[in-house]
């Protein structure tokens, strides 16, 4: 009944002849193309249904005019990096995770790809004249999951290869060994995988690759010499979360050599009030959005006691493999 993903592609008239537009469109020969003035005319319409659109997301190709690089937000882990920034190259994600903040942040489930990478590169080069830059490329999307269509990770890795003071992090849930094999491992490129127990993946991370496939991809990346980070974030509570989590961590490090992982991130699910309000409306049937969270300081969470015990237990389990000092924990009280 539903159209396949990207059956319709909306293209801003201004970038219709941009080389990245041409390249990306060549990957969608059967899609219907619709010309638009600005991406907001489609992406920011009122009255869109995020969950319905997730069943058949459209693609929007656009030009970004400003704010190419953002200062890292306090709710994001900076992994000890002082000059911490992120870039929004793509808005939204091909995966459909019930806990994802994007469904609270964006009015649409359609995916916007900004094609003018050259402007992002210029912006980063200007910053590098002043100080080193630690740049996360995949916060508002999963860039690696789109790599076969965009080639953006390869372009950024190539850019990083020319700028030693730039460190880029590409965070993903994807499992494309082909994509990993196509990239050269560089000292200033971090590939970060988000991992969740099988039960969470199967029930709440729709369209994502299973844990085992992600582990295989991590092994490939490690073997190729990439610097790899593992993110256990978010931890999702259920009555048996601890045994599922413990089993997952043991499975991961039975296959992935722990001494080849640069660090690990850890965070219990938390979400801003405004985002959760929209998420609950969007997903009335999700146990994640409908959990009766506790609220303070603009954020909903499991409650300090439960969040604290989940964090401590998870850290203890991870520390069997990764040294304590290399486990970065999102601390609510500090906002980081």
């Amino acid at each position, binding site marked *: 009944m539903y159209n396949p993903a990207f059956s319709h592609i909306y293209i801003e008239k201004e970038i219709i002849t941009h080389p990245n537009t041409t390249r990306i469109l060549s990957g969608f020969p059967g899609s219907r193309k*619709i010309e638009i003035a600005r991406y907001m005319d489609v992406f920011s319409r009122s*009255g869109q249904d995020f969950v319905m659109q997730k069943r058949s997301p459209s693609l929007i190709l656009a030009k970004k005019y400003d704010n190419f690089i953002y200062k890292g937000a306090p709710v994001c882990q900076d992994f000890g990096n002082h000059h911490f920034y992120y870039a929004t190259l793509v808005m939204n994600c091909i995966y459909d995770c019930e806990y994802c903040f994007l469904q609270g942040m964006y009015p649409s489930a359609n995916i916007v790809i900004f094609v003018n990478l050259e402007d992002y590169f210029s912006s980063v080069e200007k910053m590098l004249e002043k100080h080193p830059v630690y740049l996360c490329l995949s916060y508002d999307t999963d860039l690696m999951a789109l790599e076969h269509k965009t080639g953006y990770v390869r372009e950024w890795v190539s850019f990083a290869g020319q700028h030693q003071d730039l460190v880029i992090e590409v965070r993903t849930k994807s499992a494309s060994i082909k994509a990993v094999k196509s990239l050269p491992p560089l000292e200033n490129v971090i590939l970060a995988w988000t991992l969740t127990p099988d039960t969470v993946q199967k029930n709440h991370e729709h369209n994502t690759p299973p844990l085992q496939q992600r582990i295989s991809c991590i092994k490939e990346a490690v073997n190729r010499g990439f610097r790899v980070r593992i993110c256990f974030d978010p931890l999702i509570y259920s009555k048996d979360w601890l045994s599922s989590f413990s089993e997952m961590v043991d499975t991961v490090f039975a296959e992935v050599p722990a001494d080849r992982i640069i660090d690990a991130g850890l965070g219990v699910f938390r979400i801003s009030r405004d985002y959760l309000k929209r998420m609950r409306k969007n997903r*009335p049937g999700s146990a994640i959005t409908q959990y009766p969270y506790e609220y303070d300081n603009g954020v909903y969470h499991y409650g300090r006691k439960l969040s604290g015990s989940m964090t401590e237990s998870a850290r203890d389990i991870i520390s069997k493999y990764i040294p304590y000092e290399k486990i970065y924990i999102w601390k609510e009280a500090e906002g980081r």
Partner: protein
Amino acid sequence: MIYIFTALYCEAKPVIQYFDLKRLPDINGFRFFSDGAVNLLITGTGALNAAIGVTALCSVHSPNPGDILVNIGICGTGNPDLKTGSLILCNKIVDLGAYKAYYPDMLFKHSFIEGTVLTSPVPVTGRTEGYNGDSGVTVTDMEASGVFHAGAVFFKTHQMFFFKIVSDHQSGEELSSGKVSELTEANTAPVFGWITPIHGELQGIQNVFSDDEKLLLKQLSEMLKLTVTMQHQLNQVMRYHKTRYGGFADKLREFIADELKQPCKTKNEGKKYFEELRKRFV
């Protein structure tokens, strides 16, 4: 419920016959037909009339998230490849009065021609499509932007569908009402044969609580003397329990029978039971 809007009676006639709709009292002067599951309103020509018509019907019969809006009517085109009678499903609507574009979601598979409809404030006899500049299929009507603009107040972008049937090639020829009905009739079954299963799909999206569960929660709130805030908290706990475990009614009835037994005398007493409930159901 399917909400259908046409500009003219001759466009509506085949649809009325297809669904066997009955004429009901006019709504704010707009002719209205219904069978309880399908509502059809004739708006008159022009985007402004269309917007007023949509607003009039939807204000009286409020749509729900499973409902669908359909705008169906004739259009002109300067495109010689589009034969008279061609059916276009619109993926873009441009209001030539405001030069503003609207985009209905295109989530569902179909075999129609897709294109842009330009809504003109006056009948078009020339090559109005020249204003658009888009490549691809373009047709011209006088209502679609008004239907979308007003429809967006009541429907989400995936609930609205715009069908245009080519009736002329903008040469200024007169069209008889019989000819318009004939063109619409030929496309009525394809349009509504496609719409009906989509309507069924959207109807399947239901509220989390059944009527029985809502009643049970209301009774419990009264027994526990819960404040409005705590009632919301109770609903949230049960919504979570239901999504996680499939239901709560039997377990909650057991709690009421075994633990609570009778209504609380004070709010403090109710609060204690509420905390106990929270522990059991989260």
